Each structure stands twice: as structure tokens, then as C-alpha cells.
């Protein structure tokens, strides 16, 4: 059996040809036009190229529509689900550890404790319930890890520059907070800087507090690894480049190494202040 994209495809069914182009693979190329004629898929070479053209155009436009339309939506849901799973798992874990403490002598604290309980063999009806409950919590933790792996795999193709700059999970969070990659690309970088700090921002706007220096981007080492006096500068520089990265990803989609190098330089300059001015 051949690996050709047209293997098993009805010549009159362009959709099947497109599927062949999208989903197939081969270890090595071959003289596909000749094979297509030989196998009776087409009458001659020029008909082959016509069919190939239909199939590749349909495959490419379908896949573009799917990947463009859906990737940021998928990331948004995935990152929210990951947070839900983590928050709920922690809640369950608290109950498990507390309950298990009344039944067993040696219960490790926190999430380790939950995994430990889930592995035990219950001997009484009460133990049965607490072990079963712990199993649910562990399943949720595993689900959280799977979701994180999914985000790490998807973010680089949905937003290559943003994912490279912020890391896949923070990239997904920014997209989720903005409400989509297109929205993130359109907001000013000052908004990107405080995404996730809405409470603090509104407190500031109603005159009750100073303006927040950073929102969710605080989780990045560029911000939290910079000394507090310079964090505002680092957050502003970082947000500026994130904004550019989101725009490149939304409007162009190609990977631009220059932007990343510029940011690295800028952060180094900001951090160098710590060594210069002060004793």
C-alpha cells in the first residue's frame, strides 16, 4: 500500500483528498504523479496536478480556519479549567487531610498527604469513603497536569512570540484575561501590564490606592526576579514587548527573534541599576 495522499481517495471527492493531504505522512517522497496515473487515480499528469491543487488549497484553508479561529479559544478554556482544577483539588485536599487525620496516625500534610491517602487500602467504611474522596482529588491534580501539558503544547503554535516571551502558561493567561488573542493585540501595553490586577486598578481609579505596577505578569521571573524598586520599570518594559509579541502573533504569525533579544537587553539594563547607583 502506498503512502501517497491520494491512496484510497475517490478522485471525485475533493474533501477526501484534502484529508489525505492534512493527515497523511510518508518516510520518503516518491514519483507521486506517475503513481497516481498508474493506480488509475487520474488519467494523466495534468489531471493529477489539478486534483493536487484542489486538495492542497482545501486542506490549507480548512486548517488555517480551524487553527486560527480556535486556538486562542481553546487556550482560554484550558487555562481557566487548569485553574479550576487546581483550586478545587486544593479544597478537596484540605478536607481529605483533615478527615484522614481522624482515622490514621501518620498523614503527611498538603497534596502529598492526599496522594498518600489515595494509595491506602481501606479497612473500614469510613476509611473507604476518605480514600475514595482522596482519589477524586488526585484525579483532579492529574487533570491539572494534563491541562498544563496541553497548554504548553498548544500555546507555541497559537502565539509563537507571546509563548516564547512569557512562557506558554502566562501567554495563555494573558489571552484568557484579555478575552482572546485579537483583543490582547488591540489593547495598549499599559493594559497588558495590569491584566489580572483589576481589583487594585479600580481601587486606584476610585482614589483609594496607588496604581498597580503589575498584574498577572508578576508571575514571570523578569518581574518578580527584579528588585522591588525597579519592578515597575521591568513590568512596563516586559508589558511593552508582550504587547508587540501579541500583535506580531495576531497580525503576522511568524517568529521574530529580534523582539526577544531586545527585551533581554532591556531587562539587563534595568537590573544593572541595582549594581550601579546603590552602595
Amino acid at each position: 500500500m502506498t503512502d501517497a495522499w491520494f491512496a484510497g481517495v475517490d478522485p471525485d471527492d475533493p474533501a477526501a483528498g484534502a484529508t489525505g493531504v492534512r493527515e497523511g505522512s510518508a518516510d520518503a517522497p516518491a514519483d507521486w504523479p506517475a503513481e497516481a496515473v498508474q493506480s488509475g487515480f487520474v488519467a494523466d499528469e495534468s489531471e493529477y496536478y489539478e486534483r493536487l491543487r484542489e486538495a492542497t488549497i482545501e486542506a490549507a484553508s480548512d486548517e488555517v480556519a480551524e487553527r486560527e479561529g480556535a486556538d486562542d479559544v481553546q487556550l482560554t478554556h484550558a487555562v481557566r479549567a487548569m485553574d479550576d482544577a487546581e483550586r478545587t483539588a486544593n479544597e478537596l485536599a484540605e478536607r481529605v487531610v483533615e478527615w484522614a487525620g481522624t482515622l490514621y496516625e501518620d498523614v503527611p500534610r498538603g497534596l502529598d498527604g492526599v496522594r498518600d491517602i489515595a494509595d491506602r487500602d481501606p479497612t473500614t467504611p469510613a476509611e473507604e469513603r476518605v480514600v475514595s474522596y482522596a482519589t477524586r482529588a488526585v484525579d483532579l491534580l492529574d487533570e491539572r497536569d494534563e491541562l498544563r501539558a496541553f497548554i504548553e503544547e498548544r500555546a507555541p503554535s497559537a502565539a509563537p512570540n507571546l509563548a516564547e516571551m512569557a512562557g506558554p502558561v502566562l501567554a495563555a493567561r494573558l489571552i484568557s484575561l484579555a478575552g482572546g488573542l485579537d483583543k490582547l493585540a488591540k489593547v495598549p501595553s499599559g493594559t497588558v501590564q495590569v491584566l489580572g490586577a483589576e481589583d487594585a486598578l479600580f481601587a486606584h481609579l476610585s482614589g483609594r490606592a496607588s496604581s498597580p505596577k503589575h498584574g498577572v505578569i508578576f508571575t514571570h521571573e523578569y518581574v518578580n526576579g527584579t528588585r522591588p524598586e525597579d519592578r515597575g520599570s521591568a513590568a512596563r518594559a516586559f508589558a511593552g514587548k508582550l504587547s508587540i509579541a501579541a500583535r506580531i502573533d495576531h497580525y503576522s504569525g511568524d517568529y521574530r527573534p529580534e523582539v526577544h533579544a531586545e527585551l533581554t537587553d532591556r531587562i539587563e539594563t534595568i537590573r544593572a541599576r541595582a549594581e550601579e547607583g546603590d552602595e
Partner: protein
Amino acid sequence: MSNDLPAGVERRTYDGRERLATQGEPVYGEPTDSDGWRAWDAGRSKLGAMLELDMDTGLDGGETVLYLGAASGTTVSHVADFAGPTYAVEFAPRPVRDLVGVAEDRDNLFPLLKDARDPSSYAHVVEADVDCLVMDVATRGQATVAIRNKQFLADDGRLLMAVKARSEDVTAEPDDVFDDVVSDLEAEYEILETAQLDRFHADHLGIVAQPK
């Protein structure tokens, strides 16, 4: 005498300036003339720059071409104007949207949303023994991509490659990057000619090579 341009590529005058041109539907707002020729902007196309600089690309016109890093189809549209079957591989979905539009106006251009680093994902579509492999991918490991895709190229086929120094290493000196890429390529290819494309594209090296 300089190297001949491939059949289907001519030097024509636009706004008093002589420029490369091919015959086909306009794609990116380039100047056209009444005979249906459109200017090929060497400042937006590395292959155009290689032709402008009289590099011996070995192209005669009518070749089967595998083009890696087709982006929105600016260059590949001109290639399809003078070449035969042209396979255009691009990894990012957004530019492929434009590339599909370019392909719709041409009979011999086949857009593929695939990763050039993984040839097995399109070896079931792209035919063996293509005459010309054009590479313009902005990724690290450009030499590796060229070597992995050598399987598509006929024994006497040509590799036409534009190396972007900043894609390999933004901090290194471009000349050092070029030396590394060329020496990596030499494992599998015989280098026929190299030229800096700086007149049109900063920090780019054009390479013409043949499989070993």
C-alpha cells in the same frame, strides 16, 4: 555576460527603474504594466535579490520547485509564474491564509501548512526529484532543515537558500553564523556560490548548492 535569467523572468522598466518582473496576477501591490508583467521586488524577496545580484541559480524556467518558508507567498508567487509545479510549505497559519489566495490565482502552486523541520509530514504530497529546493525559513538550524529536505531534491538539482543570521543567533556576528551554516551544509551539499544579500536584505547570505 552575466548569468541568464530563467525564462519567464525579465528585466522591465517601472517608474524609470529597471527591475525584475514575471507574468501573473499581482499579489502584494507591486507595479504592473499593460502586458501583464509585474515587478518582482528584490527588497521583499531573497530569491529576487539572488537573481538581481547575478547569482548562478541554475534556474531556466519550468522547474519543479519545493519552496520552504513560503510565508504569505510574495516570492513564491513569482516562482510559480516562471516555474512548473511549485510546492509551497509554510508553518504559520496566518500567512498561509494569504498564501491560499495566491494559490487560487495560479494553476501550479500547491500550498502546504506543514513544518519544514518535519519532511515526513509532507513527503506523501511533494514528489521526489524536484529540480529546485528554495529555502527561506526563519528558524534556528537552517542547515539542518536543508539537510533533512535533501531527500526531495534530484541529484543534479539545486538548493537556493537564504540564511538569516539573526534567526540562528541574534547576538553572534553574522559572518560567524554564515561560516557555521555553510560548514554544516557541506556535510551533504556541495556549495557552488555564496553572496551577501546586504544590498537588499541586511544580515542575509544567499547560497547556491548541489546535493553531494
